[in-house]
């Protein structure tokens, strides 16, 4: 599923979407970026509350095309700039990581 279609289906707020056609095939939920670095599969959307520019660097390193920020966490300007530069989408929602994970998994046919 493309990043754009995922965002539309979830009806989450788009903060940055430099590459709407990037393909999402999986998801990974974690707030510890060291854990994300070690375990997240390529092509995943990262579901997290970690609104920090390091999240973008980690996503870029692992080939993760999008980040969903839960619990209405904000994305600071430097994070949004980095996302633009690295071609990574940032979506924002009031959903918890639990709800967002379920909804993404459902849309990707993984539950």
């Amino acid at each position, binding site marked *: 599923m493309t990043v754009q279609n995922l965002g539309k289906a979830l009806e989450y707020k788009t903060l940055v979407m430099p590459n709407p056609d990037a393909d999402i095939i999986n998801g990974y939920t974690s*707030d*510890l*970026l*060291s854990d994300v670095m070690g375990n997240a599969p390529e092509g995943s959307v990262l579901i997290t509350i*970690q609104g*920090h520019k*390091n999240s973008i660097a980690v996503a870029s390193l692992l080939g993760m095309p999008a980040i969903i920020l839960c619990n209405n966490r904000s994305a600071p300007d430097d994070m949004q700039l980095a996302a633009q530069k690295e071609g990574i989408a940032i979506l924002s929602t009031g959903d918890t990581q639990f709800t967002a994970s379920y909804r993404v998994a459902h849309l990707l046919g993984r539950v």
Partner: protein
Amino acid sequence: MRWRIDLHNHSCLSPCGSNLMLPAVLAIEAMDAGIDILALTDHNSSRNLPAFAEACEIAGISGVFGLEVTTMEEVHVLALFEHLHDAMEFGEFIEFLLPDIRNVRELFGEQLIVDLAGEVVGELEKSLYGAADISFENLIEEVLARDGLAIPAHIDRPSNGVLSNLGFLPEVRYSALEAIRVPVMCETLGNSIIQGSDAHVIEHIGRRFCFIESERRDFQGLKDALVNHTVTFRT
């Protein structure tokens, strides 16, 4: 001159700190352990620093006045100040940024404010367990702007460290980095590394320390040593 320093210690104010960790006990035990420069760094509060300042004076130890702040990313950062009043003001600021949650002492432990003699003069109601509403970078900037030392704590620990929570060290200016084990096996961006006890119980006072080479046994001497990379460890 070579000075033995330990810049990371808790008192009975920290919910996880033993109620026997009175500021005066910390100062005296540290003096016995040969510590020359000692910091008290309770979680997100500075309220036991006045008693600590008095105790250091009596013990003839150079006191550094600090807090261990929990940032919004739940990264622990030591914020250290030369002057008590600066640390108190900063402590008030950090307490204000904590979520408005009451401490449940049965679950998290008591948060005791004590005087020099160890008499309980108050108990902090707001939970110090939470994260302050300030980002890692903004906190570092704020501490440095107030002429403090900003030192990410236990960067090699699997929880509440900058590496565990943020994956790698953001490229900003630090005063130093604290590690549990040296040498550290990660990129340190040329920063000095220090070791501290992170003592929560009396038995842990002085368990980790390091040495600085400096003319002065005070905050300025400490600052110079961190900049000049004259920190060494026990061999």
